């Protein structure tokens, strides 16, 4: 049997962490940000209605981007309070 070789670590903030039920999450075999969004929307349908940015290894990215193995991926919602 083939071993999973592509692992990523998710870090979530604010309301996204609330919806995930955790601020960290380890995921396997998620090669791109689009696949990640699809996975998250399927597992946590409420996220589909929320805006959030994605950072890979502490760099904000836009559009569909590849996620390298062992990457740390941050999910960043906007905050409005003051």
């Amino acid at each position, binding site marked *: 049997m083939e071993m999973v070789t592509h692992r990523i670590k998710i870090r979530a903030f*604010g309301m996204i962490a609330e919806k995930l039920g955790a601020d960290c999450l380890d995921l396997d075999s998620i090669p791109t940000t689009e696949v990640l969004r699809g996975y998250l929307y399927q597992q946590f349908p409420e996220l589909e*209605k929320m805006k959030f940015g994605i950072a890979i290894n502490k760099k904000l990215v*836009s559009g569909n981007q590849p996620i390298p193995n062992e990457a740390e991926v941050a999910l960043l919602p*906007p905050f*409005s309070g*003051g």
Partner: protein
Amino acid sequence: MSRFVRQVILPGFGNEAQQKLKKSKVLIIGAGGLGCPALLYLAAAGIGTIGIIDGDTIAESNLNRQVMYGEAEVGINKAQAAAHHLKSKYHDVNIQCIPEFLTTSNAVSYIQTYDLVIDGSDNFPTRYLVNDICVLLGKPLVFAAIYQNEGQLALFNTKKGDIHYRDLFPEPPKDSEIPNCNETGVLGVLPGIMGIMQAAEAIKFLTGYGEVLTGKILYYNLLNHQTYTLALEKHPASEQMLPNNLTEFESRDYALFCDAKEVISWKEALGLIEKNSKSILIDVRELNERPELQGHAHMKIPFSGPHDIIPEMKEAEGIYLFCQSGIRSLRMARELSQTLSGKKIYSIIGGIESPDAPLN
């Protein structure tokens, strides 16, 4: 001995940096949870001119975090109370008090004379408005925002083509994506910390002391003191989301709550209810929220429950909604307006915390 001696003797700061602060003009938008601590430290540091813009009045529930104010100041305008406090402390800071909400029609004239803007507002429409006008006028913007136990901090727009808020979030979230005010509690220390960080960024930027958060955003978590700093880059859609010029900015609808067409004052609402018996007043807060409205017949339809159209609504000619501060009621008014077209549906400005609310 000057009141600034302890910062002037800091290696690398000195008289030169102090003179830069003295010559600087800083505008603080919102004298609330973020604005209060930022103002206290900027005035203490010797910023020459400080503008304070806020149309809101002090409510008792503000006092856990808006530490410049006390019980005796409940009901007073925040910009006026803050200006009064700071003027009584220091003779050498020129305080400009603007007791108004920032709008697309007053933003240009109020912002253009300042060197740097601090966003201490508490809602998305104002944050996008402030970002856009700072980009159009070329003003550096110190941004901070909070959600429960977390805060964000950034310095935007320090030069032409610099990163700004729309590079992070090109478009504002829709109403339905924003948590309502009832769900977001906060310990006073969090905006305290974030507001002081904003003051620190402003001082560092104005004097060239240390490193600033340009092209970056910092996330801070109060519960474990973890910080997370991210590098930002230009978003391909951010520039096209901006208004092209000041005329376009002025005609844009940032859906400011104070400009919303569905809103009405307590005085006006109660007057209309008295005149027309086919009016209903609805409390959309959760059942445990206090204070209770006294002396006026009303129904209760909690925001968290189903927003069904009930027979009373169909029969009513005027529907008046209120909540704690006017945010949930505005959202419900907009929602009901879509299903009950043709009826007059209003959200009462400021909710039960408004100084005009009829509390016995």
